[in-house]
């Protein structure tokens, strides 16, 4: 493994809501003490259900949100305490692809405007022929440059979004559920495109998704999050899960193969409210293996090659 491209150290984000006149604010930890190292060229997946903090993590990494504590280092530079002008310069090296291709493009911008914006913002000249080149790279016809978002399909928009993210040749890209609002046939196209681009440009990806199947297909390493915390890091895509929650996620998927039908044994119970976390393991309430210890004491990631935060790993 090469030198770490990105180091996330004990990142925590606390959100406060509902504070007002004579009204007690409620706080939640959207991301709790998350540490992670991403090597150059690696594809790291972050998987979890809604409200697990994966999107917040993505934004903290790019400092689109300010962390409550912890830091993010890119090639040793602490992004979390960078001056705005230095941060802007640093943004050249990283980029993000967003989930919703419908709202991630300014409706008033043409495709050319969208793809020019990174250069404007970074005050760099737009090389001639760059737009057509970028469009071709993401598999769009160069004639599309004059189109507006409402004239494009979801898949095409997402390709424009990817082209925008890669316009300044970043090294590190956060993919925040880039296919979640697309049809399966388009999802596969986009994943294919992302894989190809990674090979061509030597990109490093942090891939956020709720779809474990997709993550296992696409990623080298998988971080499983539950209610703001990392519960397990699968060292390889096909490593056997050790945490009961990861197991449950795998079991919740339906294989498109009628010959491998199996009894569905879903998890019982509901995800607890992030405002009102139980004292012990957050998963204890739904876990078939939970013991009394799980309900009172919070497990931490063990320092193995397959880190798992569980008192009773599989």
């Amino acid at each position, binding site marked *: 493994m090469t030198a770490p491209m990105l180091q996330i150290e004990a990142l925590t984000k606390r959100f406060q809501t509902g504070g007002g006149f004579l009204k007690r604010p409620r706080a939640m930890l959207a991301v709790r003490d998350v540490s992670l190292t991403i090597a150059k060229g690696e594809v790291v997946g972050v998987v979890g259900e809604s409200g697990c903090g994966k999107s917040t993590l993505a*934004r903290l990494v*790019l400092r*689109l949100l300010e962390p409550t504590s912890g830091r993010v280092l890119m090639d040793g530079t602490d992004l979390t305490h960078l001056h*705005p002008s230095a*941060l*802007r*310069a640093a*943004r*050249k090296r990283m*980029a*993000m692809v*967003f*989930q*919703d291709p419908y*709202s*991630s*493009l*300014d*409706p*008033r*911008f043409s495709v050319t405007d969208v793809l020019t*914006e*990174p250069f*404007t*913002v*970074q005050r760099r000249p737009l090389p001639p022929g760059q737009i057509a080149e970028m469009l071709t790279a993401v598999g769009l016809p160069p004639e599309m440059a004059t189109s507006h978002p409402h004239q494009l399909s979801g898949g095409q928009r997402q390709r424009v*979004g990817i082209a*925008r993210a890669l316009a*300044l040749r970043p090294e590190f890209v956060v993919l925040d559920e880039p296919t979640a609002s697309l049809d399966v046939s388009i999802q596969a196209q986009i994943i294919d495109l992302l894989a190809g681009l990674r090979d061509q440009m030597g990109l490093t990806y942090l891939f956020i998704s709720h779809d474990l199947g997709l993550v296992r297909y696409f990623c080298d390493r998988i971080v499983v999050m539950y209610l703001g915390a990392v519960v397990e890091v699968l060292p390889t895509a096909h490593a056997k899960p050790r945490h009961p929650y990861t197991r449950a996620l795998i079991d919740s998927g339906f294989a498109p193969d009628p010959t491998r039908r199996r009894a569905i044994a879903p998890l019982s119970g509901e995800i607890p409210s992030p405002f009102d976390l139980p004292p012990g393991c957050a998963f204890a309430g739904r876990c078939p293996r939970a013991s009394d210890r799980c309900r009172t004491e919070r497990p931490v990631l063990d320092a193995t090659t397959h880190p798992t935060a569980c008192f009773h790993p599989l």
Partner: protein
Amino acid sequence: MTLPAPLRALRRPAGAPAGLWLILVILAAIAAPLLTPYAYDIQNLKSAWQPPSASHWLGTDEFGRDLLTRLIYGARTSLSVSSIAITISVLCGMTLGAAAAWFGGWFDRAVTTVVDLTWSFPEILIALILVAIIGPGTTGTMVAISVAYLAQFTRLTRAQIMTLKGETFIEAAASLGAGNGHILFRHLLPNALAPVLVSAMLATGDAIILEATLGFFGLGAQPPVPSWGGMMSAGSALVFKAPWIIIFPGLAVAITVVAINLYGDALIAELDIRARIRRAV
């Protein structure tokens, strides 16, 4: 090649007659001296109180002046006062609303509180008090109307920007390293513009009514300059003797405001921003 939305709105069923009426009124206001053989201010007391006839299509007023002539010149006053007032209001409201949405915190809270409260206050009251402060006349009316509608545009702009701030493309711009200025002026304001402008147009209709009401209280344009409100005010004194003096300016106001609303609706439909306007109210 698609036509710009204001022209497309003209092709809609209700938009067409409404837009044509507005164009007609505006053209008439501009070309007023060419359209009528009479002067708006020359009195001919011998021919006062004449009902509509061939020589005076809408009759004459208490000074024997041709009512149609005064109606056309009145369109000048009414339209220019209300549209200038709304323009001022929009400019100030957008600045204030954008600043509130952008800076947030106590500034936003203060602006929102004041604006919400004044928004619940009837515009006519705000305008009356302001005219009392500034003094009657065209300038006073303009300032009063623009302040009366300030709350509306501040609210609207703020709401637009608050909604837009949640859009992913703003986050996308930020992720590229865009600064505040870029986001505000390249993304937020241009996107907030269409709903604000359309509401401004609809508000111009309300402002015409407000201007007329101030005119009714004798606080608008001062004689002999005609304004629709002023004409109705004069006519109200003798509504039973010469009802045409008050009926025609009233109809002019009503039809013009209806036209503004219908055309505005067509424009809203054409721009597909109904939800954005409604959500902001």
